[in-house]
């Protein structure tokens, strides 16, 4: 047990160090080349109470502090949020296929965003798009929950099915709007871009929008790690162990819907992070949610800025879409997990 604790401590420490390193590395790289050294000092200079002689060009400082840094921070917050909610969903549904999209929040958010682009709100008011995405997310989750609830009970399998149904409906409505918009190339392009997820042009307002909701919500979720552990043994056993299953599930659903809603609103629909990262962490750290939840958050926060870095730098001057990259990395990895598991089960 002690050795296990030690291992977990080392992994968490490693993830924290990696996070710091990625923050600097991902900020140092981009379409304009800026020396690593300058990036390092510019970032340190921005930390309160620290100040260094600014011998770097002003344009470099602007690019670092106003373009790359907020983008990397948004990527970290969103990546962490997606991975954490994925871990929660997998625990809550006791289903390895569960991901944040399963309660309809992702597709609902995408529908809200696409509607606001199509109706022209998105180009007139800065908060119109994120707000519509957020409302779409919450509405979708609400419908999923209401459809699945019967006499105050919400069976997991019903929740899963109604999530698929509402999600499918939202996706088809999104496609419908896209087909209406097709003759207007600029609008259609924006919609397609948005549905593929991305962090292009994300700046401090996006950080200010995401952080105050996502970070506290994730913090609250950590407190439910013990309850999630007990629910792994089945709801009745958890009930027997003193967990209020109905309320725990309700609270966790609301918190994840909130977290996903905000994530989708700042980054678009990004798949696979919420599915693959928790699985990866479970393989390394085991199923204890007390460790799994923070580790998933940190790993997600490390992964998404790296994926975004690939988007920014691979095929310049065009940008790859983030959702494409995460699926491209996540898909094969997931297949690897499946094959590995198949071997374990069949003993080959």
């Amino acid at each position: 047990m002690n050795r296990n604790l030690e291992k977990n401590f080392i992994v968490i420490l490693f993830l924290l160090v990696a996070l710091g390193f990625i923050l600097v590395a991902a900020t140092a790289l981009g379409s304009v080349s800026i020396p690593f050294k300058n990036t390092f000092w510019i970032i340190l200079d921005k930390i309160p109470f620290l100040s260094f002689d600014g011998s770097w060009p002003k344009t470099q400082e602007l690019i670092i502090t106003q373009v790359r840094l907020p983008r990397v921070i948004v990527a970290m917050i969103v990546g962490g949020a997606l991975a954490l909610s994925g871990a929660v969903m997998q625990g809550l549904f006791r289903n390895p296929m569960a991901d944040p999209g399963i309660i309809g929040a992702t597709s609902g958010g995408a529908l809200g965003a696409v509607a606001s682009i199509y109706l022209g709100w998105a180009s007139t008011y800065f908060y119109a798009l994120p707000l519509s995405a957020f409302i779409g997310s919450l509405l979708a989750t609400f419908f999923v929950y209401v459809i699945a609830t019967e006499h105050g009970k919400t069976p997991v399998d019903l929740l899963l099915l109604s999530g698929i149904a509402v999600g499918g409906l939202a996706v088809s409505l999104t496609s419908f709007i896209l087909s209406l918009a097709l003759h207007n190339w600029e609008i259609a392009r924006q919609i397609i871009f948005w549905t593929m997820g991305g962090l292009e042009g994300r700046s401090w307002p996006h950080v200010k929008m995401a952080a105050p909701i996502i970070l506290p919500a994730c913090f609250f979720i950590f407190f439910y790690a013990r309850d999630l552990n007990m629910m792994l043994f089945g709801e009745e056993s958890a009930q027997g162990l003193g967990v209020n299953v109905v309320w725990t599930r309700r609270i966790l659903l609301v918190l994840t819907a909130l977290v996903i809603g905000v994530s989708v609103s700042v980054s678009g629909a990004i798949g696979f992070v919420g599915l693959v990262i928790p699985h990866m962490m479970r393989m390394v750290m085991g199923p204890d949610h007390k460790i799994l939840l923070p580790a998933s958050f940190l790993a997600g926060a490390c992964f998404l800025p790296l994926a975004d870095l690939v988007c920014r730098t691979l095929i310049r001057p065009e940008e790859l879409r983030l959702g494409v990259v995460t699926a491209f990395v996540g898909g094969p990895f997931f297949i690897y997990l499946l094959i590995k598991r198949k071997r374990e089960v069949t003993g080959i």
Partner: protein
Amino acid sequence: MKKHRHSRESGNLVSLTSLLWIPAFAGMTMICLGLGLHAESKFPRTIDAGGGRKLTLERPPRRIVSLTISVDEILSSLVDKSRVQAVSHLAIEPTLSNVIPWAREIPRKISQDIEQIIACDPDIVFLLQNTRFEIVQALLQAHVPVVQIDIQNSIQDVKNDILKIGKALGEEDKAKKLIEEMDKKLFAIAEKIKTVKKRPRVMTYHFIGSTAGKERTANEMITLGGGINIPAEEGIVGSVKISEEKIIEWNPEALLLSGYSPHRETFPDEVRANPALQTVSAVKNNKVYVIPGKYFMTSSQYLVDGVEAVARVLHPELFSNE
């Protein structure tokens, strides 16, 4: 009584203004002599930066960045190239740009890449009104002076944009002159078109399967070029996707295609050989015309050349002695 007082007041006013004339003249002469450039004297000035924003410019911009080809083309006629830091990639696209030699000498060609834009250290950035909101927002966050240009759907829109850009750069006189030149060319074409007895009924057909109705520059090119734009006549507004059936039904006398059709260079031949369109008189009489993309797609002063290009294919007889 009242009248009397009024006249006395105005009398005072006249003597007062006549007194003010002398120092005012002297002052203005001194300012003009002192600064040498009359345009400089009008800065700082506040301009409409689009999207409901105002922008105050302390001095005429000297590090100009443009992200859209229509502004690239307008800039080429308004300012010396030494004042331009970057133009759009399309400014050197052979099938689209009217200013390739000029654009080649501009240090950078960029796209909507925020980092690249900031790296130019611009004192003014021109981009279109429909540029993605995040990009505009991120540039504003980085204190980059952004001017959003309205999307040009008519010659009047283009003229307004030329004036707006001229004002932002302290080059109003050149802007006005550019517009005068446009009007002169348009007048010359109109004089020729006046003699036309029958205006052919035509339409545009874009390689993505769309056509242009009202409120599109192509509509004006056709009208001023001596044709009747069928979609506009049918009440269509903007660009819409059009079915082959509709083309057969409308039976245009000529089809106008854009020379800019990336990845679909064979489009004109496809149209000519399309079995479904063989009864259409434009196809039957071999009147499927390809207008060079740089004239047909432009939204700058070169739009006038688009009008002429359309006039030339619809009424070649008017230009036969040139």
